[in-house]
C-alpha cells in the first residue's frame, strides 16, 4: 500500500473554533484522517501542510515510524509529522480492521475518562457552562483562570480563584472534578500561591501553572505544593518532558496531539510511567483529534483523561457530529471506546466541505 494523495483543509465551527483536517489517500482506496491546529491564520497552516505533506506520496503508511523519520529529515514541521502519524495509524487500522488502540497494544481500559474544556467567562457563565457540560455527560471540567492586571493580584485574586472553584463544585456536585487551566500566565511565585490556596479542594491538577520557563523554574510549583501540576502543551520534544520529570516537577504530562501525533505521545507516556506520572493529551480542536486522543488513552497504561473543547452552542456540537459521525458524548464522565477500525469515525466529506474556511 502506498500513499497516493494528501488533502488538508481548514474547518470552522459556527462558534468560531477552527482547526485543520487532513485526509491521506492510498492507492488501495483506504483513506486516513488527522487533525492539527489552525492557528491565527488557518490558510497559512493549510499552505504549510500543502508544501510539506506531498512528500508522503509513495510512502508505505503502515510504517508510521519510518514515515516520521523521513519527514523529520526533510525538515517538515511538527504539525505535518503529527498529522502524518495519526493518518498512517488510521489507515493501518482500517487496513487490518483493527481500532488504533488495538494497533497500539490496547485497550488497557474499557472506557476513557472525559474532560470538558470550558471557555472563559464570568462566574455565572462558567457555572452555566459547567451545568450544560454536565447535562451532556461530563463530570470533569477544565476551567480557565482569569488573570487580572498586575496591581490586582493580591489576596482578593487568590481567594477569588478558590471561591470560583468552590462555587462551581457546589453547582456541579461533589462527584465532579476540575482542572484549573492557568494557560502559562502566572509567574512561578503566583502559581505557588494559587496552588497553596487550592490545597484541600483536590483539583485534578493545575494546568500550565507558569509559562515555558526552565525546567527548574517550572518544577518549583510542584516542589512547594501538594496540588498536582500539568505541563507540556507547547513542548515540541519528549526531552522536555524527561527534563521536567527529572526535576520532580510534573504530575500530569500534557503533550499536544496536534504537534506530537500518537507515537510520540506514546513514547512520552513510557517515560512518564517510570516516574508514576499520568498522561492527559492536550487537545483543543475538532472531533477527529478528540477521537485520536481517545484511541491513544485507551492504549496507554498511564493515561488519565482525554480533554475535548466543550461548546454550549448546539450548532457547534452538531457540526462536529456531522463531520465525524460521532456525538462525542461521554456517559457518566467517560467516553465509550471507539471500537471500529482506525480512529473509529465515519468522516463525512460533504460535512467537511460545508464547513471549510473559504480562502
Amino acid at each position, binding site marked *: 500500500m502506498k500513499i497516493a494523495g494528501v488533502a488538508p483543509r481548514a474547518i470552522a465551527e459556527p462558534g468560531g473554533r477552527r482547526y485543520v483536517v487532513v485526509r491521506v489517500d492510498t492507492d488501495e482506496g483506504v483513506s486516513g484522517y488527522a487533525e492539527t491546529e489552525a492557528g491565527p491564520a488557518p490558510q497559512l497552516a493549510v499552505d504549510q501542510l500543502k508544501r510539506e505533506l506531498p512528500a508522503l506520496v509513495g510512502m508505505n503508511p*503502515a*510504517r*508510521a*515510524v*519510518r514515515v*516520521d*523519520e523521513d519527514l523529520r529529515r526533510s525538515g517538515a514541521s511538527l504539525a505535518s509529522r503529527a498529522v502524518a502519524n495519526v493518518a498512517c495509524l488510521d489507515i*493501518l487500522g482500517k487496513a*487490518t480492521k*483493527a481500532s488504533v488502540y*488495538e*494497533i*497500539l*497494544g*490496547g*485497550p*488497557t*481500559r*474499557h472506557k476513557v475518562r472525559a474532560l470538558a474544556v470550558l471557555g472563559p467567562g464570568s462566574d455565572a457563565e462558567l457555572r452555566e457552562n459547567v451545568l450544560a457540560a454536565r447535562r451532556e455527560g461530563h463530570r470533569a471540567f477544565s476551567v480557565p483562570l482569569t488573570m487580572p492586571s498586575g496591581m490586582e493580584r493580591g489576596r482578593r485574586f487568590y481567594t477569588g480563584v478558590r471561591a470560583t472553584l468552590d462555587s462551581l463544585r457546589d453547582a456541579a456536585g461533589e462527584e465532579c472534578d476540575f482542572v484549573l487551566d492557568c494557560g502559562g500566565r502566572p509567574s512561578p511565585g503566583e502559581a505557588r500561591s494559587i496552588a497553596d490556596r487550592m490545597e484541600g479542594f483536590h483539583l485534578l491538577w493545575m494546568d500550565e501553572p507558569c509559562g515555558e520557563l526552565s525546567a527548574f523554574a517550572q518544577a518549583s510549583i510542584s516542589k512547594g505544593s501538594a496540588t498536582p501540576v500539568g505541563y507540556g502543551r507547547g513542548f515540541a*520534544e*519528549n*526531552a522536555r*518532558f*524527561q527534563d521536567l*520529570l*527529572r526535576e520532580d516537577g510534573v504530575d500530569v504530562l500534557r503533550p499536544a496531539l496536534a504537534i506530537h501525533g500518537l*507515537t510520540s505521545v*506514546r*513514547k*512520552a507516556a*513510557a*517515560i512518564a*510511567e*517510570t*516516574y508514576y506520572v499520568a498522561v492527559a493529551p492536550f487537545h483543543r480542536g475538532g472531533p477527529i483529534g478528540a477521537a485520536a486522543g481517545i484511541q491513544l488513552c485507551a*492504549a*496507554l*497504561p498511564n493515561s488519565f483523561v482525554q480533554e475535548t473543547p466543550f461548546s454550549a452552542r448546539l450548532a457547534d456540537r452538531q457540526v462536529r457530529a456531522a463531520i465525524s459521525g460521532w456525538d462525542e458524548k461521554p456517559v457518566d464522565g467517560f467516553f*465509550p*471506546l471507539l*471500537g471500529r477500525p482506525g480512529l473509529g469515525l465515519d468522516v463525512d466529506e460533504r460535512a467537511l466541505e460545508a464547513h471549510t474556511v473559504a480562502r
Partner: protein
Amino acid sequence: MNRRDLLKASLFGAAAAPAFAQGARQSSALGCEDCFVKEIALAMPSAPRLRVTGVKTFGVTSDVLPRDRPHVFVKVETDAGVVGWGEATLEGKAAAAMQAVHDLSYAIMGQDPMQVEHHWQSMYIHAFYRSGPVLGSAISGIDQALWDIRGKVLGRPVHELLGGPLDDRGVRGYYHLRPVLPREAPYREQVAAIRERAEKFGVTAFKTGIPGYYEWIDTHARIKEAIERLCILREVMGDQIDIGVDFHAKTSPAVALQICREVEDLNLMFVEEPCPPENVKAMKRISDRTTVPIATGERLITHYGCRELIEGKVVDILQPDVNHVGGISALWKVGAMAEASGVMMAPHACEGPVGAVASTHVDAAMPNFLVQEICSGVEPDGKDKLWEELLGYPAMRMVGGYYPLPTKPGLGIEVDERALARHPFGGTKPFVSLPVHEDGSIASP
C-alpha cells in the same frame, strides 16, 4: 473453578494446570475462587475475536547449547487456532522461569490476547513483588507470544505494528569473536582468520571479552594483558570493523577505568558492563572519566529498571534483553525513554532464536537503534544447526551484516514442536562458568 475442579486440574492437568492451581489458591485467599479472571477482564462492549485457551512451556536441552541456558519457549494457544510463540530463557534458572510462566498464566487464560499492554500491566503490577529476572523473563515469554498472535491476527509482522522497519536491509548485527582456527592458534592469527571471514560475509562488527577474571584492584600484568589484547584486535581487524568489548562486570570501576582510558584511541564501539549493574553511581564514575562509549543493560528488568541509567546520562548505549526486560512491550519502552536522552540501543541476545528474532522486530522500529547482538560466531556451529531444526531456517545468520527481517505476520517464525520433542528439557544447570580467584575467593563470571 471450584475445589473439585481445582483438584482435578492438579492431578490430571497438562502444562497449564499449575497456573490455575496457583491462581485459584491466591483468589481463594480473597474469598473468591475464580473471580480473578472477571476482575482482570476488561468489560468490552463486544466479545473478543479470540481468547487464550492454553499456555505451554517447552524446555530445550542440547549439548550444543551452553549448559546454563536450555531454551525456554512459551506457546500461547487460542480458541481461533492462532498460536503465539515467545521465549523466557533465563540463564541458570530455566525451571524457575518455566514455573513463573505458569504462575502468570492466570493473567491471560480466557482473555483477549490482543490486549497485550493490559496483560503486561496485570502480570507486572498484580505480581506485587515487582521486577527481578524470573518475573521479567516469564513476562517476556508471554508478551512475545501475545505480540506474535497480534501480528498473525492483524496479518502484519510485529515490526510493522511498531511502525517500522526503518531500514529495508534489516537489522545491523554483530557476532562474537569465536575461534575459527584450532584453539591453540595464536590470538593474532585467530583474529586475522575471523577478519577474513567477516569480509567474505559482509560482517561489520564483533564483540569480544577481556581475558581472565579480575579482583577489585588488580595487578599491572593483568591490566596490561587486557589492553594489549584489545590493541592487537584493533590492529588486525583494521578500521572498517566495529569492536565492542564486554567486561562482563568482571571488573571494578577502579580496574575498568584504567583499561578504558588506555584504549580510548582504539575507538571501540562500546565497553559493556565495566562494573556490575546494581550501583548506577559506580557505573557513572567510569563513564564520566572516559570517552569510550559505555554500555549496559542485559541484566536490567523492565523500563523501570533502566530509568536511573537514562535519567543520570550514565551510559551511551543500553542493551536490554527481550527475554528478560519484559518482552517486546518493555524493550520498546526502554528504547523510547533512551531516545529522548540520546542513548542508543544495542539489545542483548544470548539465549534462543525466538527471543532473538523478537528483538529484531523492535530494533527495526527504533530510531535510536545501533546494533543487535547474537552470541554466535562468524561461522555457523552446532547451535545454528539446532536453531534451523527448531525454526526451519537459519535464524539469526546475517546477510551482508544485517539480520533479515521476517516478513510473515507476527514474529514471522514457526516453531516445530516435533523438533522440540527431540531435545527434551534436562533440568536447570548453574551458570556456564563459576570462577574463583587464585586465592579461592569468588570471581565474577
